[in-house]
């Protein structure tokens, strides 16, 4: 990929791993072949293992300074008692050191198989690219089938969590509808966009967010069952931001003024389509919805006329408010990020 001037990314999530490459069209077939050959029957060498361990450890270290990621992991850990969403995909840097080559080899043999994969091609390619996909390891017995999805994630009464972090911050999280409840899931997507989208969301106008290094983020993560709505923030003014977020979430239980709602829904459609214009964005999006079990519902499926956009068009102020009451009216999981004692001026 690098020799073509392309980019390669690997991301791990609770129930999947994504490997995505962006390359010139002239190299797409060769890259499709190379990637599927490598990932459908991985060969683990000592040097490859050493290198991968070092890179993942570095990624985990970088992520440990990302307030949004830290809050997200804590929220998911507080909401789920079992299932794939319970633990952070990357783990903490120290835990990674305990992962052995044998464990990785065993996992690769079970999970990295053609039967478990979804291949997405987008951009300047045609359907013939599928002929470049490698068969991978010959399948025998149970390996002929895709591995069954993990058990539905069990949730529990949300808890309060405190994490040490270089800056003050916090987060809230609620379980939401499954990916099968398309209209309700879309309503929470809309609400997250209306309230929290950087630059345009109503919460983005908070004066506290003008301070350098301060951030606020909110989104609904569409998952097989259930989804998660979570909000995170950090930086100076965290306490005020947290108070404002709680008030806004509570207000979402009341229907928006119809004119404001119509404008926000128009803006939401523009944001969705704008977020899905590059090949990478499209491939990531289609892959995600496939794995979560509802590809047809993927935004952008069937261009500008798929089920997702029809669900958006069906939204009303009353329905969105009812979904907010149902899911965001419950007690949330609360996360507090607190600086180490020395940062707060407390000597020990």
């Amino acid at each position: 990929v690098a020799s073509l001037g392309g980019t390669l990314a690997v991301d791990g999530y609770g129930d999947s791993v994504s490997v995505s490459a962006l390359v010139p069209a002239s190299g797409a077939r060769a890259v499709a072949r190379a990637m599927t050959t490598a990932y459908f029957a991985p060969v683990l060498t000592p040097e490859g293992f050493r290198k991968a361990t070092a890179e993942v450890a570095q990624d985990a270290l970088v992520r440990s300074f990302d307030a949004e990621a830290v809050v997200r992991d804590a929220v998911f850990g507080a909401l789920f008692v079992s299932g794939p969403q319970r633990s952070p995909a990357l783990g903490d840097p120290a835990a990674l050191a305990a992962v052995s080559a044998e464990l990785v080899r065993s996992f690769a043999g079970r999970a990295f198989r053609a039967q478990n994969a979804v291949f997405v091609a987008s951009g300047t390619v045609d359907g013939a690219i599928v002929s470049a996909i490698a068969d991978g390891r010959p399948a025998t017995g149970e390996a002929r089938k895709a591995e069954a999805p993990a058990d539905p994630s069990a949730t529990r009464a949300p808890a309060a969590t405190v994490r040490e972090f270089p800056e003050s911050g916090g987060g809230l999280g609620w379980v939401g509808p499954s990916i099968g409840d398309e209209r309700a899931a879309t309503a929470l997507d809309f609400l997250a966009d209306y309230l929290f989208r950087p630059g345009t969301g109503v919460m983005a106008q908070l004066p506290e967010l003008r301070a350098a290094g301060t951030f606020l983020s909110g989104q609904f993560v569409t998952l097989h069952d259930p989804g998660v709505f979570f909000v995170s923030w950090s930086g100076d003014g965290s306490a005020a931001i947290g108070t404002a977020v709680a008030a806004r979430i509570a207000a979402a239980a009341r229907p928006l003024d119809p004119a404001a709602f119509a404008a926000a829904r128009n803006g939401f459609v523009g944001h969705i389509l704008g977020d899905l214009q590059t090949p990478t964005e499209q491939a990531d999006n289609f892959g995600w919805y496939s794995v979560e079990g509802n590809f047809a519902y993927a935004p952008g499926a069937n261009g500008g006329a798929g089920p997702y956009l029809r669900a958006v068009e069906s939204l009303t102020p009353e329905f969105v408010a009812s979904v907010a009451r149902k899911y965001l009216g419950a007690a949330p999981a609360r996360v507090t990020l607190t600086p180490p004692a020395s940062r707060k001026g407390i000597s020990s």
Partner: protein
Amino acid sequence: VSRLRVCAAAALFAGLAVPVSAEGARFPVPGVATAGTTRVITEEDAGAVLGGVQVFVSAGLDREPANAPGVASLLAETILRTPVMLDGRMRPLREAAAATGTLVSYAVDGRATHFYLEGRGAALGRALDLLGTALAAPDYSPAAVAPAAALLAGEIADVEGNPLSVGLEMFKHVYYQGAAGRPVNGTTETLAALTAADLRRFHDAAYRRGGVSFAYAGRPAPGLADALGKLAGILPVGMPPPADHRTTPIPATLTHVIAQRAVGAPFVVVGFAAPSPTSPDYGATLVLQSLIERTFNPDRTTTVGLAQRKVGALYLSDVSPASMVVYVNGIQTDPTAGLDEVLLLTRALGARALPEAELAKMRTIAAGRFGAQAISLGDRSYLLGSLAAQGLGADGLNASLAAIARTTPADVRRVARTYFERYVVSVILPRTMPPPAE
């Protein structure tokens, strides 16, 4: 869609493609039209759902008056906050455009302020009308200007915490004599000193019909030509003031600039003069940029962002004349050793020609990298308009690929000798580190 910001894909193998190869043109050839007397470069894509239009106004840093740094940015932000009428109600332009489903944003660079609108069909035309209203008569009242200034002040603070941005500004300050050498938003002090009268004077001088051009990428939009034609006529006839492109020659003796900021590790930024896109040296410059990054970041399997690279190279063609910076990231590598290695490499490239086989690989990489910069509608339309404004013609994307494809070993060596033997070194140190003794 919000979930994409978190995570995105799944057990997924995405063989993705951009329409570029190292040999020959691969981007669609754009069309050229006029709206009134204004040039429009158009690359239509029936497969796209949206369209994106860039409105370039020759009101960039190179036309800012000496006594008003930051005025271009403050005026652009004020324009986006100017109330316009939509559906019987006055509301700020940004909010009104969003209500039609159209994103509107702006950026100020060395030679232009460019407004970008992205949306669908008729809504895009409607948003262009709204932009025209605000462009013609910005709201200079405190209700629009004060929050615009507050926003820019926050951005200034963010820049101060980013060592690469600080290093870029330090180099530009040394190399560019005019306003192109100043921070795009000015400083906290100069921003606070700007008045409505400053904004009005800059608008009256620089927002002229003769300095406007358009570039469009995306789904064919019915009515777009009419909307652009109307917009083209909204500003007064005339040309903007002359641009200031003066530079200070980089001396043969080493120039060091040192600053301390609230950053986590030392950072070194080496600045060089560089050829413009119309120069015969342009292709070799893009190849050299790729070669430097490839040389110093060979051992990562996955592609990393600017902040995670040991060494990065940026070609700055948004300002005239162009320049290049190479940075050494002290979080990832020893900055002193990294600087030595960068200078060793640039000297070696000037001393002997690259083998053709090695150069062929680098041409392929450079072409792929260039193509990856022109994927979104916003990036594509910006590059089309910007490269055209720099003299590369309407088909600047393919012209750039062609320049890369015809680069020879002698070109690379010549460019290294011509541009890389004189440089400015900017060092950004954490506040906790003492500055080096003179």
